[in-house]
């Protein structure tokens, strides 16, 4: 592979790493700071992607209308797509959280598996919604006209990195605020926090919704990068499990850890593709995705057993007030 090819590869690595970093940051709000076990990230991912797609593409006309069906086509600009994605995903979080957060913590986990599966099924079977299994294609690239085609991915990289920075900054501010302190108190000792008069349910719901909105944002960023989405892109592996491994590896309860984990795991994932495609004989090369599948699973178990705090561990100092 020549230098420009390598460079191109690295840029795409960075873009996807950044997109996944957004997901990991969202999960960090839910799990790292609040202890919520969300294993249906793929659902929020998908909803964000599809919402942005429906908002930013026009309704199909003429000959296209026979091939493509979608619920709405608002043809609005990219930032509104992002906003819509975050909002709808947040609402989904609300819907899931309301019945489950007052109950045992594993009920949320089971419910989130269900919602992710239900969403996938709906998008796959209801043609009128978003074109069923064929999905939506030709999603617009934001600010396309600003650069030449071969340099566009640099622009998109900047967009993604800005998004990561904004989300990171927003969460960091939130965590250091009084709201954030209550969240951490709840995760440490829910009973004590409740006895101190904190409405534990409300705080957990807010964390769930905020995390969900961030994930929706990530979904939108993903959609406009790959430009074509369909239900089978949002599998439990890519849409949920990978992100968990990212957060656990980087360090849950640590935003830098979330970002680190995202780039690292994505690097391992694509890097190992490289290795297996070049070195393995055809039969095994076809099975290679499952080897990587296995590897990622083993990495998670290794983390849980050997270093549950991840590489960076939890942030120790949350509030300046504690230092005094």
């Amino acid at each position: 592979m020549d230098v420009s090819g390598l460079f191109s590869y690295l840029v795409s690595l960075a873009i996807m790493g950044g997109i996944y970093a957004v997901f990991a940051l969202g999960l960090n709000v839910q799990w790292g700071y609040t202890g919520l076990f969300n294993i249906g990230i793929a659902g929020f991912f998908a909803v964000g992607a599809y919402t942005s797609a429906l908002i930013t593409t026009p309704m199909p006309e003429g000959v296209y209308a026979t091939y493509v069906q979608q619920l709405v086509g608002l043809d609005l600009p990219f930032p509104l797509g992002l906003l819509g994605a975050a909002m709808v995903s947040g609402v989904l979080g609300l819907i899931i959280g309301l019945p489950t957060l007052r109950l045992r913590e594993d009920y949320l986990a089971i419910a989130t598996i269900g919602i992710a599966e239900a969403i996938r099924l709906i998008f796959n079977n209801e043609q009128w919604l978003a074109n069923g299994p064929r999905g939506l294609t030709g999603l617009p690239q934001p600010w396309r006209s600003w650069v030449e085609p071969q340099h566009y991915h640099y622009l998109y990289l900047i967009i993604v990195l800005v998004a990561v920075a904004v989300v990171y900054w927003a969460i960091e501010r939130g965590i250091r605020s009084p709201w954030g302190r209550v969240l951490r108190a709840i995760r440490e000792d829910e009973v004590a926090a409740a006895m101190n008069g904190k409405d534990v349910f409300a705080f957990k719901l807010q964390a769930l919704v905020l995390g969900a909105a961030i994930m929706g944002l990530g979904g939108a960023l993903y959609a406009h990068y790959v430009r074509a989405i369909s239900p089978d892109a949002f599998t439990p592996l890519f849409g949920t499990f990978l992100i968990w491994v990212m957060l656990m590896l980087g360090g849950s309860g640590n935003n830098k850890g979330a970002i680190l984990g995202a780039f690292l795991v994505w690097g391992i994932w694509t890097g190992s593709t490289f290795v297996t495609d070049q070195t393995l004989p055809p039969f095994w090369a076809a099975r290679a995705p499952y080897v990587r599948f296995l590897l990622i699973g083993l990495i998670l178990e290794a983390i849980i057993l050997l270093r549950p705090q991840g590489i960076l561990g939890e942030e120790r100092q949350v509030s300046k007030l504690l230092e005094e």
Partner: protein
Amino acid sequence: MTELMVYGVVLGSIIALGAIGLTLLYGILRFAHFAHGDLMTLGAYVVLFLNAELLPALGVPELKLGPLSFGARMLGSLVLSMGVTAVVALVIDRLLYNPLRARKSSPIILAMASLGMAFIVRSVIYLIWGPQFLFYSQELRPAWELPLEVRLRPDQVFILVFVLLLVLLLYLFLQRTKLGKAMRATADNPQLAWVCGIDTGRVTAWTWALGAGLAAAAGVLYGIDAQLRPDMGWSFLLPLFAAVILGGIGSPLGALVGGLILGVVQQVSTAFLLPTYKPAVAFLVLILLLFVRPRGLFGGT
């Protein structure tokens, strides 16, 4: 409609087998075992290996059983597979969950570890057998005409009888044997069980053996009725958990009833919805349950 309900009972009995194992693990080991569906898958594929490859290679004949689509060799494979899956579960427990329990890890961490295990088991199956659908037998056995215009394949009758048998055996084990009672005691009050001197290690091992064995059987039965695919167990996860919660976590009777109800509801739903929506129907039942009666039918906690 009757036919849908009857088939729903068949499906429901498969779900019930899985759910009973899951609820035992929930009640005695106190965590949500997210790898349970993939143990079903493992059991099914191990039978494929035994019945279609290993045993024939060893010269064991099929020994056809009348109107069923399989023979005694398959039955033997089923039993062997239950044992193999139980051993695998025990090894996993020794390597993964036991160290976590020793560290007093929270149930959520155990659940997360089991989620990782689900993916690991599934990826191994993908690696060995590939992603395509597989079948135990290509034979088409004609359905029996039963009263009330119900048509059941002989295989399906076998499923019902087999599940009934296993449930009965389990009931006798839990109610009549010392170890079974010790398991129920541990589910009730693990610390008091320890105070009585009950060997929690043995109880844990037997819980895994039973839970995994039942899961394997459920997977095989589903494979007999439908087909094998690497994600078959994962797609059962929602109905399994819904059945467990419906019946009340920790109650094997509840899991049986819950499983049957879920099977019937899912099957009846195909009169109005596409069959692929069945997991979503299970999910709806679950959400409804969480709103209306999270404790379930026979639940305590």
